[in-house]
């Protein structure tokens, strides 16, 4: 894998002993994402239970419009691919290419959020209208929070991949790999959410 801050640190601390260990930061991140996934799993379980056992009040059956969320699904899937391109470019030491791909990925994330807000403003129901409305906003809002955080992190690593003085290089890929894994995770959650909330 890549050269590590932590192993360097340990080597410095015990110069006589000279110990190293493998990189397990990615392992920690995966464990965290499993935990994060369980939060969504809880929300999905609650939503599906409500759908099965709690009938909505009369006249409150809302059909969700599909065009915007479908566009959003495509946006996120494309952004996963562009993020992957950024990683490949960085591995070949093409920092400016990598930065362009990262900015493009962040741009797609921002478009996603704008579409999401557009959808919110044009929906015929508000947060407290009924159980379905509340669950809809809670689920998409919690996911949107993840997209917002992801976009911010992409902008930070895009800034870090600048040619002069940036921390992100082909020798130090971890920040990019970590954010990439997180971004793929958020995309995966969106696909599940899209199927459960809009298609089912």
């Amino acid at each position: 894998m890549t050269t590590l801050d932590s192993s360097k640190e340990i080597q410095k601390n015990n110069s006589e002993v000279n110990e190293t260990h493998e990189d397990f930061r990615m392992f920690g991140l995966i464990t965290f994402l499993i935990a994060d996934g369980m939060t969504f799993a809880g929300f999905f379980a609650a939503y599906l239970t409500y759908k099965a056992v709690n009938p909505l009040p009369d006249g409150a059956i809302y059909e969700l419009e599909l065009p915007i969320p479908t566009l959003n699904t495509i946006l996120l899937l494309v952004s996963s691919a562009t993020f992957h391109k950024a990683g490949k470019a960085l591995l070949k030491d093409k920092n400016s290419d990598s930065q362009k791909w990262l900015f493009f990925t962040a741009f797609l994330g921002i478009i996603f959020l704008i579409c999401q807000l557009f959808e919110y403003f044009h929906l015929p129901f508000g947060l407290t209208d009924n159980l379905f409305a509340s669950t809809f906003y809670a689920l998409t809002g919690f996911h949107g929070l993840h997209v917002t955080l992801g976009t911010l992190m992409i902008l930070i690593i895009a800034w870090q991949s600048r040619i002069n003085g940036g921390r992100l290089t082909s020798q130090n890929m971890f920040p990019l790999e970590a954010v990439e894994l997180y971004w793929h995770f958020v995309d995966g959650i969106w696909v599940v959410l899209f199927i459960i909330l809009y298609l089912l």
Partner: protein
Amino acid sequence: MTISIDPQKTNNESLQPKGWLRYFSFSLDHKVIGIQYLVCGFIFYLIGGTLASAIRIELASPMSDFMPRDVYNQVLTLHGTIMIFLWIVPVVNGAFGNYLIPFYVGARDMAFPRLNAVAFWLIPPSGLMLVASYFVEGAAQAGWTAYPPLSITTPQSGQIIWILSVLLLGGSSIFGGINFIATIIKLRRPGLKLMQLPMYCWAMLGTSLLVVLSTPVLAGTLILLSFDIIANTGFFNPVLGGNVVVYQHLFWFYSHPAVYIMVLPAFGLVSEILPVHARKPLFGYTTMVFSIMGIVVLGLVVWAHHMFTSGTPPWMRLFFTIATAFIAVPTGIKFFNWVATLWGGKISINSAMLFSCGFIINFVFGGITGVALAQVPFDIHVHDTYFVVAHFHYIVYGGTVFIIFSSIYHWFPKVTGKMLNEKLGILHFIITFIGFNLCFAPQHWLGLNGMPRRVAEYDPQFQFVNQISSLGALLMAISTIPFLINVFLSVRNGKNAGDNPWNALTPEWLTSSPPPVENWEGEAPLVEEPYGYGKEISEQK
């Protein structure tokens, strides 16, 4: 991110405050963090214990004459929350886990030291916030379960502070869990195999899996509950079309595994203590490992046995009754293993051993009532009565807290380099054991005869038994005094312990007492047989 380190200094000790001040710093040393967890937890134990005493004083008479009824509700809510989230979970996982796991895997620190320090420093502010909520329009009144609609209709500010505090503590718990999993799986010293690890590592691995898989669900649930309280949504509010049973499912999906989060580490700790003081190898290592993992898997699919009276459909009752009964099998295997470890051993009767034996007795009793409670007809009879209170105090106090004390007596010489006074320790055990059983055994009878829990007033016919219970609580409160005297005297004037006063074989005893920063002067020792007792005499001579 990396701290710049002076190459002249071979460790980062120079960056940390010296002496007792380092316990108030953002230290990255796993041993300092372990002690921070332990002392912080013990302070909250004293607060939670004071609240418990207030409950028992109130219940010494049938009328609510000691405090108003709403204050009683706040006291019982704070007692439960503090004892679970600020004493048992942080101490039995955070304190002993942080102190011991790096030794056991042969590492110099945890996998993520900064995350570790963050996880600890989330606890004091959220604990203080929880206690302070009493002074802001009153604390939460809905019990530690915070069931809606009760938690939606009681005063809001206390409930919201309660939710915020539990969310922070849950975050701390998840960060700790990630750290333990990474340390045990990834940071093992080269040459150390998984099946050579001391049993506490396996217990912590299982516990951390439960933490990572179930705590986030509680977090999500509490976020939805806070929406119900603040934003007037109706997730759990039947008036607005919501469903209270969904809350109960999500809550118990965390809170039943939480019982194992509180008890599995204690199983691990007792597996370390018994072989040392019985001078025998731990009986049935492999079966112990598989029963821990069995408990982890089964522990995730038994939650609805808390909800047999919530309109649960018959198939669900059947499934959860059977699954719960199955958990008795791995647990039973562990108990037979401990008894077999003691069998024919050269047992030293000291405080650590006494508390461990007390644990075995109390926990078997709590386990038997647990199997009884899993049976639907019986559960419906005693649901929400004092029988349940007695059952879980036998598990959590008689089980886990006894092991916390046992572990303190066992590892105090390692942490401080001084021995604890054995006479005071045995006195502490006797008062605790008698007080505990006097307090909680009569509550089984109260529950079977129909005294509901969480009430400030009760039928006068129960007064005498309640007074016996309160007398037991008084003894439990008194039992803290010899313990505190013992600790304070021994830290200053205790007998020097030496590096290995118990002649134990697990790795933490192979370094000096107290251990140096980064644990070992040279390379970490490879301990292939942590329980090889009975062999060491021939090897040493």
